[in-house]
């Protein structure tokens, strides 16, 4: 049986997303992640190639770009999405998307409550409050709830943890884990540690996308990742810097081993003196 990918980009930055899988796109800052996110969400025509949703390009054969034709099953959480909140209450803001799908009030209520629960906000406490009275991290959660309330088939996240402090970032990452399996997720990030959570990983490099080993194997390629400008855990960044100075280090995935090797290397040199 041939399965048609839920979302497919055929261009220089070709990539494929199967149903309910988590795909991450790893790229240095300003490597064109945001543009790719807009193209995948049918908000912008790709410069090269086409984007297919279930094998169909909804923007094809239209000379004019009509964003109202875009499939509602694909949603995007833009970068710093908390800046896009506007409604008087949190409830209204989260309900903004579902209301455009003209559901009944009961259905909208159900979706909003479910979405707010999914982002672990206290529904009763928060629903009548103004989104502007919340903290930055909470506002980002409300923005995520607004996207989740669309119950998308494909959820695109453009640097969902950018500009958050480490604590809030970890809390936010915890929210994303239970979303696995509910919809296909495309996660664009510049942090290798976040990308490692995905089923499949693409690396953006020189305007092209290359599929790379996922999971625990991802960091085995730390040389490639570092030279593509991706943000790595500091041990790997140090190792990359040391290699450029002529030290040779093992291609290991484990941070502990690499750390050992660096210490060993340093001790050996010290002894020579």
């Amino acid at each position: 049986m041939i399965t048609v990918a839920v979302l497919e980009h055929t261009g220089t930055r070709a990539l494929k997303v199967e149903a309910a899988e988590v795909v991450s796109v790893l790229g240095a800052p300003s490597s064109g992640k945001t543009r790719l996110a807009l193209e995948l969400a049918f908000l912008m025509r790709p410069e090269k190639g086409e984007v297919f949703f279930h094998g169909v390009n909804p923007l094809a054969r239209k000379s004019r770009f009509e964003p109202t034709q875009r499939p509602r099953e694909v949603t995007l959480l833009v970068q710093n999405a908390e800046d896009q909140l506007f409604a008087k209450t949190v409830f209204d803001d989260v309900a903004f998307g579902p209301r455009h799908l003209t559901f009944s009030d009961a259905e909208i209520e159900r979706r909003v409550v479910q979405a707010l629960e999914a982002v672990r906000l206290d529904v009763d406490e928060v629903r009548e409050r103004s989104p502007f009275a919340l903290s930055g991290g909470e506002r980002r959660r409300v923005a995520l709830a607004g996207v989740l309330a669309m119950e998308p088939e494909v959820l695109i996240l453009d640097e969902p943890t950018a500009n958050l402090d480490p604590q809030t970032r970890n809390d936010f990452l915890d929210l994303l884990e239970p979303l696995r399996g509910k919809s296909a997720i495309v996660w664009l990030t510049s942090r290798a540690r976040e990308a490692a959570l995905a089923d499949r990983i693409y690396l953006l490099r020189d305007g092209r996308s290359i599929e790379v080993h996922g999971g625990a194997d991802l960091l085995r390629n730390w040389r490639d990742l570092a030279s593509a400008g991706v943000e790595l855990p500091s041990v790997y960044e140090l190792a990359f810097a040391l290699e450029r100075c002529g030290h040779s280090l093992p291609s290991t995935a484990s941070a502990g081993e690499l750390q050992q090797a660096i210490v060993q290397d340093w001790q050996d040199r010290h002894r020579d003196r």
Partner: protein
Amino acid sequence: MIGSTPRFLSYQVGDSVLHRMDPRTKLLGAFAIMADALLASVPFGMLTAYALGAVAGLMAYHLLPSLLRVLRPLLILIVLFGFIIVVTTPGHALAHIWIVVPTSDGVSLAIRLGLQALLIVYTTSLLSLTTPPLAVADALQWTFGWLQRFKVPVRDIIAMVAIGLTFVPLLIEETQKVIAAQRARGANLGMNALLDEQSMAALLIPLLLANLRRGGELAESMEARLYDTGPRTMLLQRRFRRLDVMAASVLTVFTAVVVLVSFVV
């Protein structure tokens, strides 16, 4: 969408004749052409004003395609408002179509206003496409500096204008970003957004907040760098050259002719 064509009021780097002209000449020239358009009688004066505009355009001919793209939405507006003027101006009726009564006075007024609006936007676009915002500010300072003697805060006003001009492209980019973001979560932002209160709020409130925030940050950072604690000096001393003298004389002569023809003859 984002990054498609040169945007309205944004400077394009280049080396055309118009780029090399002194910003003061360009500013006063733009004023002269606009004055011609406003004073001119149809058809002779308007023809002169348009001829001057065309000559100015030819001096930066490689920008004309992008300039026309900037003007295209304006044409739609002009036709729309022209129609309203044609049917609402009282005067000699040309026809009676149901309750719509176009008048000859309306037609001439619509043509006149349309031509004026087109030329004014064309001239300002040409100026801003070929002149960096800071140079425009310098030119404004030079032109209106004398008002400072009458306790008009020219410097502050011009600083505001210059900052405003610099931020127009950013504002447009930001609008596109907000539109994309709201569409991404299901909004139906098209032409119908203008009629829908919710969609308007979804567009305007994030924009307004972002701008207020940026304004505050900008003011603080300017003050932190000691803005307005002493007299301002200029790094660049601008000089008029032969090109400027030529342009200025041509514009003066033609403007004088237009004024004469419109008022005296």
